[in-house]
C-alpha cells in the first residue's frame, strides 16, 4: 500500500467515520485515496481553524477522537489555534498535516513550515513521518496517545513523498506504545483517606470539572451516586457542566469568576473540598492566597502535573475520575459510612441562604431583550428534546453557562481554557455530523461569530441544520465590561462597528436569517428557528449595556463577589488585580 492508502486504512481501523479537512498541494495523494473509497466521509471546511473546532465538537459530543486533515504550510499554521484550544480543554484530536517532500524539508520550499516545531508546544505529542513503513504504527500510536490519560491533540506531519511511497501496513492490535502508559487506577490508601475525610466533613463540597466528561458517561453516573450517598453539594466548572445534572437539587451552579454566589461561597467556606477532574485554574480560584483557606483538599486527576500546580492539596489521587469515584463508592458502602447529618443540614441551610440572594437575577423590561431572557426562553423551549449547545467566547458564553441547564455530559461544547472566539459554529457543525437528528445550537455573540463566519458555507453544503443564536449587543461585551471595571469606561475599540445585516448575510450563504428586537418576539423567533429544516442565523438584538454578573473581579477572593451593577462602584480593583487577565 502507499502511505496515503495506509493513512485511510489506519483511520478506518481506528473506527473513524468522518474527517474534517481542506485539500492542498502537499496532501493531494491522501485526497486521492479518499476519492477512491466511500467508507470515510470527508467534510470540507472553509478554513483550517474551522476543521479543528469541528473535530473538537465531534469529539466532545461523542467521546471519540476527532480527525483533521490539512495541507502543509498555511494549512498547518491555520490549524494551530484549534490545536491549542484542544490542548487546553483536553480534547482528543488527531490532525494529519501534509508536508513538503522529505528532500525539500529545511529548504524553505513552497508552502513549507516547520510544523512539528510550531506545534510542539500546542499538542500533546507530534510526529514527522520519515519512512513509509512507519505510517501505520504512527497513526495507531497517535490515536492511542490522543485518547489515553488526559486526552489532547496529536499532529502527524506527513511528507508528500511518504504519501506516495509503498510501505507495510500493520493493524492497531500490533502497536504497543513504548513509554506512554498513564495511570488509571488511583492509589488505594489515598482513596481510603479521601473517603474518611468526606465522611467526617461538616461542610464538604464537590468541585467537578471536565475530567468527569472526559472519563466518559459512567464517571458522571458515579458522581451522581457518590453525591447521593454523601449528600454533598456539587458545583461544576465551565468545562464540567453536564457532568452533574443542572436541575438537580444538590447542584449549586457553576463556580468561578462568573459562577453563582452559593457555589463560590461554598468553595470559600468549606472544610473539605473534593476536586474531581478539574485543575484549580485562575478563573476558578480567584486570589490564590485567599482561596478556600480553611479546607482540606482532595484532588483527583489523571494528569500528575495538574496536582499541586496552583494549589497545594492534602490528598492527591492520580487516576481516572471514573475509576477513582467507583473505588470511593465501594469503600463508602463497604464501611457502611454515613455523613454527619446534622452538620450537613446546617451546611445546606447556609447554602440555601446564599441561594436566597438569587445571584442570577436580572430585570426584563418591556422594551429591550435581556440576553439572559433570550437564553432562558431558548432553554425553556428546547429542554425537552435532545439539544447540544456550543458557544463562542464572551458574555454570551457566560450567560449560556449560567442559564442553560445541562442534564447529561457531552451536550455542552465551549472553549474554556483558551477562550477562542470563533469556536462555536464549527464546533456545532462537528456535533451535528455526529448527531444528525439532534438540535444543535451555537449561542454566539455578534463579534465572535464573525471570526469563523465562513463555516456557514460548510453547514449549508452538508445541509447541517445548526442554529446560530446571536445575542447581538453591538459590543465585544466582555471587553467592554472589563473596560468599565478596570479602565474608567473608556471603550477602546470594543464597539462592533459596521456590523453586517445578519439576516441578509444568512441569505447570502443560502441559509435562513431571523431577527428579534422586542421581548415579545423572542418566543416566535425561537419557534420559527426550531421549525426550520436547514441552518438558521438568528439575530437577537439584546440590551447593549447589560453586563455579566455575578463576578469575582480579578485579584479578588471568592467572598468578594460583585453581585450586580449597583455593586460595581464600591469596588476598587488593585493594580495587581488589573495586571491579571
Amino acid at each position, binding site marked *: 500500500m502507499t502511505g496515503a492508502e495506509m493513512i485511510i486504512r489506519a483511520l478506518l481501523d481506528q473506527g473513524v467515520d468522518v474527517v474534517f479537512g481542506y485539500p492542498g498541494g502537499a496532501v493531494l495523494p491522501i485526497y486521492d485515496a479518499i476519492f477512491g473509497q466511500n467508507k470515510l466521509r470527508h467534510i470540507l471546511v472553509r478554513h483550517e481553524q474551522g476543521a479543528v473546532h469541528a473535530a473538537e465538537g465531534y469529539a466532545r459530543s461523542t467521546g471519540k477522537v476527532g480527525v483533521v486533515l490539512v495541507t502543509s504550510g498555511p494549512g498547518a499554521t491555520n490549524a494551530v489555534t484549534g490545536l491549542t484550544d484542544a490542548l487546553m480543554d483536553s480534547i482528543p484530536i488527531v490532525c494529519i498535516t501534509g508536508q513538503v517532500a522529505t528532500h525539500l524539508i529545511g529548504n524553505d520550499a513552497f508552502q513549507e513550515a516547520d510544523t*512539528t*516545531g510550531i506545534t*510542539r*508546544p500546542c499538542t*500533546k*505529542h*507530534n510526529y*514527522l513521518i*520519515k519512512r513509509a513503513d512507519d505510517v501505520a504504527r504512527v497513526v495507531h500510536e497517535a490515536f492511542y*496517545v490522543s485518547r489515553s*490519560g*488526559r486526552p489532547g491533540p496529536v499532529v502527524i506531519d506527513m511528507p508528500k513523498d511518504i504519501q506516495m511511497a509503498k510501505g507495510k501496513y500493520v493493524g492497531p492490535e500490533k502497536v504497543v506504545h*513504548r*513509554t*506512554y502508559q498513564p495511570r488509571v487506577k488511583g492509589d488505594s490508601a489515598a482513596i481510603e483517606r479521601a473517603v474518611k475525610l468526606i465522611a467526617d466533613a461538616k461542610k464538604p463540597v464537590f468541585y467537578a470539572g471536565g475530567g468527569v466528561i472526559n472519563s466518559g458517561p459512567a464517571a458522571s453516573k458515579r458522581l451522581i451516586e457518590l453525591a447521593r450517598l454523601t449528600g454533598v453539594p456539587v458545583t461544576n466548572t465551565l468545562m464540567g457542566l453536564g457532568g452533574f445534572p443542572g436541575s438537580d437539587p444538590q447542584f449549586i451552579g457553576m463556580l468561578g469568576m462568573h459562577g453563582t454566589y452559593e457555589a463560590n461561597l461554598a468553595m470559600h467556606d468549606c472544610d473539605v473540598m473534593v476536586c474531581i477532574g478539574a485543575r484549580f485554574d485562575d478563573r476558578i480560584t480567584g486570589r490564590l492566597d485567599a482561596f478556600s*483557606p480553611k479546607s482540606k483538599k482532595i484532588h483527583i486527576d489523571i*494528569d*500528575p*502535573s495538574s*496536582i*499541586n*500546580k496552583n494549589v*497545594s492539596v492534602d490528598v492527591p489521587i492520580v487516576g481516572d475520575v471514573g475509576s477513582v469515584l467507583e473505588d470511593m463508592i465501594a469503600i463508602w458502602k463497604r464501611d457502611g459510612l454515613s455523613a454527619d447529618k446534622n452538620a450537613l443540614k446546617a451546611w445546606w441551610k447556609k447554602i440555601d441562604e446564599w441561594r436566597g440572594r438569587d445571584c442570577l437575577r436580572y430585570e426584563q423590561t418591556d422594551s429591550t431583550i435581556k440576553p439572559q431572557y433570550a437564553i432562558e426562553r431558548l432553554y425553556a423551549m428546547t429542554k425537552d428534546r435532545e439539544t447540544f449547545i456550543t458557544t463562542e467566547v464572551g458574555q454570551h458564553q457566560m450567560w449560556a453557562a449560567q442559564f442553560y441547564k445541562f442534564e447529561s455530559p457531552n451536550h455542552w461544547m465551549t472553549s474554556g481554557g483558551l477562550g477562542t472566539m470563533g469556536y462555536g459554529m464549527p464546533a456545532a457543525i462537528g456535533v451535528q455530523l455526529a448527531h444528525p437528528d439532534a438540535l444543535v445550537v451555537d449561542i454566539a455573540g455578534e463579534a465572535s461569530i464573525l471570526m469563523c463566519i465562513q463555516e456557514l458555507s460548510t453547514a449549508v453544503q452538508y445541509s447541517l441544520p445548526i442554529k446560530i443564536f446571536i445575542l447581538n449587543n453591538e459590543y465585544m461585551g466582555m471587553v467592554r465590561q472589563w473596560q468599565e471595571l478596570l479602565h474608567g469606561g473608556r471603550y477602546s475599540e470594543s464597539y462592533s462597528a459596521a456590523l453586517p445585516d445578519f439576516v441578509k448575510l444568512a441569505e447570502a450563504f443560502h441559509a435562513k436569517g431571523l431577527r428579534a428586537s422586542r421581548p415579545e418576539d423572542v418566543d416566535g423567533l425561537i419557534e420559527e428557528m426550531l421549525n426550520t429544516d436547514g441552518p438558521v442565523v438568528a439575530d437577537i438584538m439584546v440590551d447593549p449595556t447589560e453586563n455579566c454578573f455575578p463576578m469575582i473581579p480579578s485579584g479578588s477572593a471568592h467572598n468578594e463577589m460583585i453581585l450586580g451593577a449597583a455593586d460595581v462602584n464600591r469596588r476598587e480593583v488593585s493594580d495587581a488585580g488589573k495586571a491579571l487577565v
Partner: protein
Amino acid sequence: MPQPEKRARRHTIAVLVDNEAGVLARVIGLFSGRGYNIESLTVAETDPSNYRSRITIVTSGTPMVIEQIKAQLGRLVPVHKVRDLTTEGALVERELALIKVAGKGEPRVESLRIADIFRARVVDSTNDSFVFELTGSSEKLNAFVELMKPLGLVDVSRTGIVAISRGADAL
C-alpha cells in the same frame, strides 16, 4: 494550612527518554515555555540497543516548582523515567572541561604546575599553548578556570553536569 517552602534550591534531575527526533526540543521547550530555569543540561545516548538517551538537568526552584518540573517532564510522551537525584539519596556529580591557555615563559610553566595539582591532563600542546582536560565537580572546574585567567586563559568548553546515584540501584 502549612505554608509551603518558598526557598529555591538546586536540583539535579535525570530523565530517561526515547531517542527520537525532537525529544530534546520538547524538554528544552517545556523549560522555556513554563519559565523554569536550566543551569546545566547534558544529553547523550546511553543505551543504543533500546534507543534510550539520558538527559541530566540541573535546575533550581521551590519544592512546588520542582514537583511541577518532574510532573511536566513525566507527561512528555517519549519520557520513560524522571528522577530527582538530589532528593533521592546520595549522588555523584561530575563535569568535564577543556581549557585552553596560551602563553610563553613563566606563566606557561605555572599553568602546567597548577594543572598538575588539579590532576588536569594536557591533551594538546603547541609551543605557545596547552589544552587541559579536567574532570570534577563544577566548583573544582570553576577554581581551575579562575587560576588560569592571569596565566593566559583563552577558551573554555564545558560539558555541563552528569550525575548518577550512589549505590547499586539503577535509575
